[in-house]
């Protein structure tokens, strides 16, 4: 305990002395802010670059990963303290991305020593940006029916097929993908998890424009792409197990993102964010009742759900800290957090009334336009990473034991 207190004090002092002041309050969202690393890395604001560099040297981009691969080698308690000290100073994470949140943990669990040596350090240092090749045009919720073929040719596989919904595929350096290596067996048993350098000849990427006007996703095509067999993670035809584990990590990451929105919502500004917003459109002095009783009830309902969810996340963490076994909660969190985020986004547009209708240009302020685009983007939250319906199926089967 004393060690942890010392550690906390040291971290605090170091951050106060070294972390760039300009970064305080910088919000990293999926679409802007911070840095995602990679060969085409961007830094927003520019001080993210030295911040990343100094954190790499401390091992703080991946604080709890083993130090032999460039991680911080910290215990999970110490890593939480570190994150807490950064949050307290409103510092953004030095590095964001699927390397840290998805493929890194998978490699640490399933990778060979050679694979770990090849990739982990580059992930930790933000040198390689990763994307995920899971869904296909005919394999969405039914992910196990993927058709991208990998045919053995000596020490290589030859890949042909198409992936879709590849997040930031156009900005990424490597892709981790599910491919079909055996079409004759049960569909889950002929899938292989493989890593592919996006610069390999035959890989091409095309961005998809969404209803929000943005293009966070791509289609990725494989046309006679030659990939070494040594890039397979775990067994050939054993990819489904790896895929499921990674999906659980992804879902808890999604839930964490929205959970932390719920957690910090009240700290950004005093009072209720939604009520303050409504005040701008409905008027009325602070502390008086909002003049639209129905909207007021919807705001209260949304806040209650937010708080109930944040408390549930906390309860699960408290139980985990006490060493209680955790169940498949990530399914509960993913479905609840994303459905709630959709409702919240929609409510914020409702609150603005006609001012919520802007697409771009004059007559709307920047925040109004961002909220409207945000609402359109949020509709995808309950589709990506497993639809809400799939999550409910998982709860019904694995938690409630209802029959197939």
């Amino acid at each position: 305990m004393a060690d942890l207190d010392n550690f906390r004090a040291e971290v605090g002092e170091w951050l106060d002395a070294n972390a760039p002041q300009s970064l305080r309050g910088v919000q990293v969202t999926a679409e802007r802010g911070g840095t995602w690393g990679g060969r085409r890395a961007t830094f927003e604001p520019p001080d993210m670059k030295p911040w990343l560099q100094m954190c790499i040297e401390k091992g703080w981009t991946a604080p709890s990963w083993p130090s032999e691969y460039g991680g911080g080698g910290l215990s999970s308690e110490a890593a939480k303290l570190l994150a807490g000290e950064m949050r307290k100073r409103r510092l953004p994470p030095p590095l964001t991305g699927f390397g840290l949140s998805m493929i890194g943990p998978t490699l640490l669990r399933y990778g060979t020593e050679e694979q770990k040596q090849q990739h982990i350090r580059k992930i930790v240092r933000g040198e390689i940006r990763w994307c995920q090749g899971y869904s296909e045009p005919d394999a969405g919720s039914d992910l196990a029916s993927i058709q991208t073929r990998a045919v053995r040719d000596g020490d290589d596989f030859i890949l042909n097929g198409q992936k879709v919904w590849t997040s930031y595929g156009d900005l990424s350096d490597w892709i981790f993908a599910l491919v079909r290596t055996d079409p004759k067996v049960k569909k889950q048993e002929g899938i292989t998890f493989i890593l592919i350098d996006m610069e390999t000849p035959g890989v091409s990427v095309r961005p998809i424009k969404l209803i929000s006007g943005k293009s966070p996703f791509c289609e990725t095509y494989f046309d006679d792409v030659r990939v070494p067999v040594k890039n397979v993670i775990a067994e050939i035809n054993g990819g489904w197990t790896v895929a499921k584990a990674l999906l659980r990590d992804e879902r808890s990451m999604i839930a964490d993102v929205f959970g932390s929105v719920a957690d910090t919502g009240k700290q950004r500004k005093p009072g209720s964010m939604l009520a303050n917003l409504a005040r701008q459109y409905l008027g009325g002095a602070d502390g008086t009742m909002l003049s639209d009783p129905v909207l007021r009830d919807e705001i209260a309902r949304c806040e209650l759900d937010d708080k109930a969810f944040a408390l549930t996340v906390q309860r699960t963490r408290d139980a985990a800290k006490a060493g209680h076994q955790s169940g498949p909660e990530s399914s509960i969190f993913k479905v609840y957090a994303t459905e709630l985020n959709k409702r919240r986004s929609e409510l914020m547009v409702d609150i603005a009334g006609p001012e919520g209708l802007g697409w771009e240009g004059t007559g709307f302020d920047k925040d109004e336009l961002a909220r409207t685009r945000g609402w359109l983007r949020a509709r995808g939250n309950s589709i990506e990473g497993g639809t809400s319906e799939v999550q409910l199926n998982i709860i019904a089967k694995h938690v409630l034991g209802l029959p197939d």
Partner: protein
Amino acid sequence: MQLLLTEDQELLAKTAADFVAKQSPVSRFRELRDSDDPLGFSRSLWKQMAELGWVGIPFPEEFGGAGLGLSELAVILEALGRNLAPEPFISTVLLAGQALLLGGSDAQKKRWIEPVAAGDAFLALAYQEVRGRYDLHRIRTRAERNGDGWRITGEKRHVIDGGAADALIVAARTTGDVSDADGITLLLVEAGAKGLTLERQRRVDSRGAALVKLEAVEVGADAVVGVEGQGGALLEDAIDRATVGLCAEMLGAMSACFERTLEYLKQREQFGVPIGSFQALKHRSAEMYIEIELSRSTMMAAARAVDAGTDDARKLISLAKARCSDALILISNEGVQMHGGIGMTDEHDIGFYMKRARVAATTFGDAAWHRDRWARLSGY
């Protein structure tokens, strides 16, 4: 604040679960209802619960209590709620017991809390009036000066377990108009006082409730609980604590109702397969499960906030009541629907949960009322 049961609380939960399973299956509640038991619960079982130390949980040791808090009492109430056990924790220990504990004189505490904690006395809080809905200040019952003491006239309704009470705490108006926040005084009236009559109110959940008439009931100066004219705040504090207890009971009821429904979905076959294999029912079941998990978090947070005396306790209580009310109504409605025809029969227990849900959701303010209070407390 940790949202986790301590080892002691885990142990208490286990003891309570075993006790309730053995001593109070739902069939016992059915017998009480069928026999038209005027008390609505069992005095001997109450005495046993007192001997186990449960009744005294939230009272200080100097009055024979255990000096624990709502977090512990919630564990007991959840266990009772599972099997719809109607023992009078909400009325005696929480509503009236907490009003005395928070506002009573030493003499009042000594006179009443000790026998309550021992399981020998029962109390009730008479505050609601006709068509008052959830407004605590809507009080027409008047108490006028009568020498040193008071003379009370009025009518109270929905007095929980009123028929069993050895004494009632009556909310009366000593000054001001109906709905004024000021001018409310809480007065202790012993059962058998001249001018006091109780009639049983039969409500859908078959639990004890009374209509109380006070016709020039005379009490002494020492009957005032708390500060004369400022009983409104004390009333709200006592009801807040009872609300947390009720949420724990509701959590137990929704969990048990859901488990019974789930069991039925696995066992009942139609079209040659268990009906639980149908996705229409699976998704609704999964949503109910989520609601129970969220309700549990809110109830635990509210109990711990009251025990720790934190500033956000009142908001967290409204959060818990709003969510537990909505969740229990949903889960008991779905319970009946998913049981199909048999769920509509009196013979089946599932309907008891739906009836209790309606009463519990309405008691101390329904979900919409608590959302309104949350908004008021949040400044909008």
